[in-house]
């Protein structure tokens, strides 16, 4: 088991191997991702039963929850890539961070916006300092921080390494921020109406949610692979192997 892991690690760690195999993988992954996402969303929108309390406004959950969890997963993935990049100085790690950050930030923004829109029919206002919305807002700020740092440093490799360190520091803090915001919420308002408890959902609602989550993760993976390929092309544009592959 351990040999295959290290073999995998070295293979996927080299930009050349990554470029070729992601080229093979992507034509399959894109349709699969889009299909899963469409199935999940359409099922949730059209076929899932209405919620007895909130009527149909809860259907926003089929984009809000997947986006929120994907944004969090994306940030943790960036932290892991950052750690690998710093400890083993792996070239691909910096490239992965540059590939994950944009879509992660978009997903965090989507989670925030859909959460706010969902708040209107449920709580009567667009913005409520609810623990989850607030920690999603801070997640968006963390993403923007990584973005701003990457653009502020001219040299791409140095920017990659600086972003790695910030991601590692950020990941450690994301957990602390989440709990401190949760505690902060209980300090000021007591526990608010839980929007919809995931576990308490009946199966007809849970199934489309899980499928759309899978869809968002696959979609996320596709954009990450595509951006990573772009970054490899930018960084390796003078190398010979790239010209053969692209000829």
């Amino acid at each position, binding site marked *: 088991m351990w040999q295959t892991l290290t073999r995998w690690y070295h293979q996927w760690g080299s930009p050349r191997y990554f470029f070729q195999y992601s080229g093979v993988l992507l034509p399959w992954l894109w349709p699969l991702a889009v299909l899963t996402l469409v199935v999940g969303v359409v099922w949730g929108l059209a076929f899932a039963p209405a919620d007895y309390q909130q009527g149909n406004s809860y259907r926003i959950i089929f984009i809000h929850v997947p986006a929120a969890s994907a944004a969090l997963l994306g940030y943790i993935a960036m932290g892991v890539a950052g750690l690998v990049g710093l400890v083993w100085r792996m070239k691909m790690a910096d490239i992965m961070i540059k590939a994950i950050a944009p879509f992660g930030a978009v997903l965090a923004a989507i989670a925030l916006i859909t959460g706010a829109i969902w708040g209107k029919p449920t709580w009567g206002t667009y913005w409520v300092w609810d623990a989850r919305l607030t920690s999603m807002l801070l997640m968006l700020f963390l993403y923007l921080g990584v973005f*701003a740092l990457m653009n502020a440093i001219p040299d791409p490799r140095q920017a990659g390494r*600086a972003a790695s*360190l910030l991601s590692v520091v950020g990941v450690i803090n994301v957990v602390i921020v989440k709990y*401190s915001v949760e*505690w902060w919420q209980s*300090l000021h308002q007591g526990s608010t109406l839980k929007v919809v408890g995931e576990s308490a959902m009946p199966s007809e609602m849970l199934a489309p949610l899980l499928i759309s989550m899978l869809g968002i993760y696959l979609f996320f993976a596709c954009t990450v692979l595509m951006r990573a390929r772009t970054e490899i092309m930018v960084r390796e544009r003078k190398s010979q192997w790239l010209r053969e592959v692209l000829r």
Partner: protein
Amino acid sequence: MSFRATLKREVVLAWRRPAEIINPLFFFVMVVAMFPLGVSPKADLLSVIAPGVVWVAALLAVLLSVEGLFRNDFEAGALEQMLVAPTNLYVPCLAKIIAHWLLTGLPLVLVAPLLGYMLHLPEQASMTLFLGLLLGTPTLTAIGAIGVSLTVGVRSGGILLALLILPLYVPVLVFGAGAAAYAANGAPVEGLLAILAAMLLASLTLAPAAVAAGLRISNGG
């Protein structure tokens, strides 16, 4: 060895440039003074927002003062000597963080109860405010130093630093201001101060390593 020498050097440096100590203090007092003007002078309202106002002002003052932590050394070329030296970079970084807190953070903490009083903060809360800031500001300096180590070579460092570091300041702010608010209502605060102390120990031990890595990266490493 290099710890004591760096600490002494920082104190001497600050002594030769007193502005670096006084400015954050003025900033801190001025920001707090803005709130009664901006919000309302009524005591009952001010006393509610007092802990938060003092903490946010302290947080911003630390953020502004920490920005110059490595800038002068970077421009003078002294930072390169630190990076090239065989001794572990962790030690001078820790020394710089502690020295910087002693010179700019501590004055804020000493002045805070006075400002709390100005904002009609209830009596029993001012001790918690003081203790909270005493535990909190070094954590803020340490986390800020990580951001500074990454932006030391960048021109528009100030705004970028705030964007990088403010989200990381949230836990300290939440528990710090929360502790003072608890104390104002007479609730027990030992638990919250313990959490602040835990954050302090964690950041003082981990931050210098991150600062050392950040300095190496922003100097081309």
